[in-house]
């Protein structure tokens, strides 16, 4: 897993069937990457639903969040609509898990991304990373602490 200080590998992934997100287009902004195993986990403890409520805290720190899993764009779209998510979910679908592997957070055995968080600073360097046990939703306190640290600089 990539650690603090490493350059965040660039990527280009679909957020919708006709929209691609390039990490390098977000230089000058803080970026949060939340890798997670799969769409459609139970509602109340769902990590993406939690981040959805926190967008205003993230924007306070000039940060954009992306969820990333190996689910396809169509699956992401249905999931976003069902959960009313207001941030992009990226499909690490083809070649499967390529970006997750680049960040060192791909679980080869189950063929899914691990549950991992990265905060990337405005210059594209990893400022903080965290690998959570797959069954545990890591919350957002670590993300906010890392963003706060960045704005202090």
């Amino acid at each position, binding site marked *: 897993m990539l650690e603090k200080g490493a350059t965040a590998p660039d990527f280009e992934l679909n957020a919708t069937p006709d929209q691609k997100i390039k990490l390098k287009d977000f230089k000058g902004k803080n970026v949060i990457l939340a890798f997670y195993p799969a769409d459609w986990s139970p509602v109340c403890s769902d990590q993406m639903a939690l981040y959805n409520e926190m967008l205003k*805290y993230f924007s306070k720190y000039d940060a954009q969040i992306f969820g990333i899993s190996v689910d396809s764009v169509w699956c992401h779209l249905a999931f976003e609509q069902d959960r009313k998510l207001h941030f992009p979910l990226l499909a690490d679908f083809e070649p499967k898990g390529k970006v997750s592997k680049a960040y060192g957070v791909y679980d080869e055995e189950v063929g899914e991304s691990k549950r991992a968080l990265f905060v990337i600073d405005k210059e594209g360097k990893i400022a903080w990373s965290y690998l959570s046990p797959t069954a545990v939703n890591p919350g957002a306190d670590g993300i906010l602490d890392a963003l706060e640290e960045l704005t202090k600089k």
Partner: protein
Amino acid sequence: MSTLKPEVSSHDHIQGAASAAITIVEFGDYQCPYCGDAYPIVKEIQDAFGDQIRLAFRNFPLQESHEFAYGAAVAAEAAALQDKFWEMHDALYENQYRINADLFEELAETIGLDLERFQQDVEAANVKQKVEADFESGVRSGVNGTPSFYVNGTKFDGNASDLYQMLKESTS
């Protein structure tokens, strides 16, 4: 290990004596079914341990997932201004199965609030700020779903039944 930020203070709604050895803080959402399930168990814990524990409740409404959660949190905080926070808290959980936008005034009437004042207070900025401050406290404390419990300031990894079991073991 996540810790509670800020600590329990006079800004919190608290049941139980300040001298209690164990302080439990619950972050809850009035529309969350898991919180509804936890409600009677938390009552059992309070009955079983009496003066040994005190309970504080902070709002953690997942507004995007639960349409009426924020309104319910505001209703409870408005009731608090008439010293009836816990009456509203209990009424909301006991009527969770039929939660909707009209429920709050009905419950306000049932628990004997001054309705006119209640209607003003649910619109008041300080009431909304209290709900948002609670939510932010949850975010900073590592709340990752509802209900989340903190025992003497440390996040408890489990649901209300697990909490009951842990307390039984640690006080026996």
